[in-house]
């Protein structure tokens, strides 16, 4: 069970189990090699997605079991889709597809200008009917929140209600979390860790470095 963080209702942090912390240690360590980084990130992403699936509305359904009995169970009551913020967010797409087979995946490319720290939308392809879906917005790192805020605004413009957006994240910075919470109080955020600060280049500290570069091996 995740806990609410920083006194904010819609911000959920995964339960800090010994296993999770040991996995986070691996991805944070700058000496971790490329292969181990990918494998370990995939495990954490799976854990995030499993928590996220708990936010899908369910409806009751009665099924007959093979042993002649019946079982009052649950099945999803709404459509879902993923929207990944390129490039780092794409690392999370397969984790989502494993939990929810053939989930539609939208993509947005938001680029951050490294001098001005402003963000620009360069590419956007979203599933048709997205305004009716529960949208899992995916970006492993949340620093200032500028890129995420731009992406969320695009979703709102497309008609997605704020309460239908669940933002999945591995490491966030408290500053970014607050920025998003102030602007979008009904949006839900699920993260594996909230780090305290940003460095001069506005990267999360301690963080894990540049997630996209480390996951895709482009350094």
């Amino acid at each position, binding site marked *: 069970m995740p806990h609410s963080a920083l006194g904010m209702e819609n911000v959920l942090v995964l339960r800090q189990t010994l296993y999770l912390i040991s996995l986070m240690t691996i991805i944070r360590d700058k000496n971790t090699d490329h292969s181990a980084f990918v494998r370990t990130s995939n495990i954490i992403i799976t854990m995030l997605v499993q928590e996220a699936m708990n936010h899908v509305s369910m409806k009751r359904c009665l099924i007959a079991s093979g042993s002649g009995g019946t079982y009052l169970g649950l099945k999803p009551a709404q459509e879902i889709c993923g929207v990944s913020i*390129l490039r780092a967010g794409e690392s999370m797409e*397969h984790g989502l597809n494993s939990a929810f087979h*053939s989930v*539609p*995946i939208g993509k947005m*490319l938001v680029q951050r200008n490294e001098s001005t720290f402003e963000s620009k939308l360069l590419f956007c*392809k979203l599933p048709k009917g997205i305004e009716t879906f529960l949208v899992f917005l995916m970006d492993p790192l949340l620093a200032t929140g500028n890129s995420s805020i731009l992406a969320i605004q695009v979703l709102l413009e497309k008609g997605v209600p704020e309460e239908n957006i669940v933002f999945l994240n591995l490491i966030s910075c408290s500053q970014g979390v607050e920025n998003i919470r102030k602007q979008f109080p009904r949006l839900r955020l699920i993260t594996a860790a909230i780090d305290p600060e940003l460095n001069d280049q506005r990267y999360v500290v301690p963080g894990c470095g540049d997630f996209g570069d480390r996951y*895709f091996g*482009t350094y």
Partner: protein
Amino acid sequence: MSASDNHKNVYVLNQTNQLKGLFTIIRDRTKPRVSIYLDAELSSDTYSGNDYAVNDTIIRLIVEEGLNHLPVSPAQVTTAQNVKFDGVVFDGRICGVSIMRAGESMEQGLRDCCRSVRIGKILIQRDEESQEPVLHYKKLPEDIADRYVLLLDPMLATGGSAMCAMDVLIGMGCKQEQIIFLNVIASPEGLYNVHQRFPKIRIVTAVVDEGLDSKGYITPGLGDFGDIYFGTKA
């Protein structure tokens, strides 16, 4: 595996019944969205019970054929039976480069064969006025000029985007011989255009379709690969 009649560096997969069966499923416009990587699970009854089909998908076949074009050196090892075995090791290092968005569908197939392979990405979009393909974004391994590059894009129509991506790679110091283009469906026009400009780049494709329609789409083709794979069909 056969080299194409027209072009020496083009390799088309053997048109087995299995391959044709998989293509029949993904080309069918009436089928619900299929994850092309896992399509056999959602396919007809013939395939659903067949574990072999589940594991062997079109993209994986193309990737495996592509990997066969990498150079090897002899390597000898000693088995637990204390016998020497003459094998091979792959020479040099590789990376994948996907042409966003459709090419990204092939990344997992590549990673399944080469765990944690490095993956670069290139975004090319057509300029609204000139309709020329233009580079919008790239993130590539810094040492890409020292690597064999598996360039990923499922559809090869006119070849405009592919050639733009190839220009980017050559500009970063890659030689044509280092680049292997992995593709699902190619048009004869695209193969010709790419081969004219980059005769030494090898192309591995699963099938060569009839041609291009008046809008420049491959025919019979299957529509927009990216939209089908990612479920963003308009």
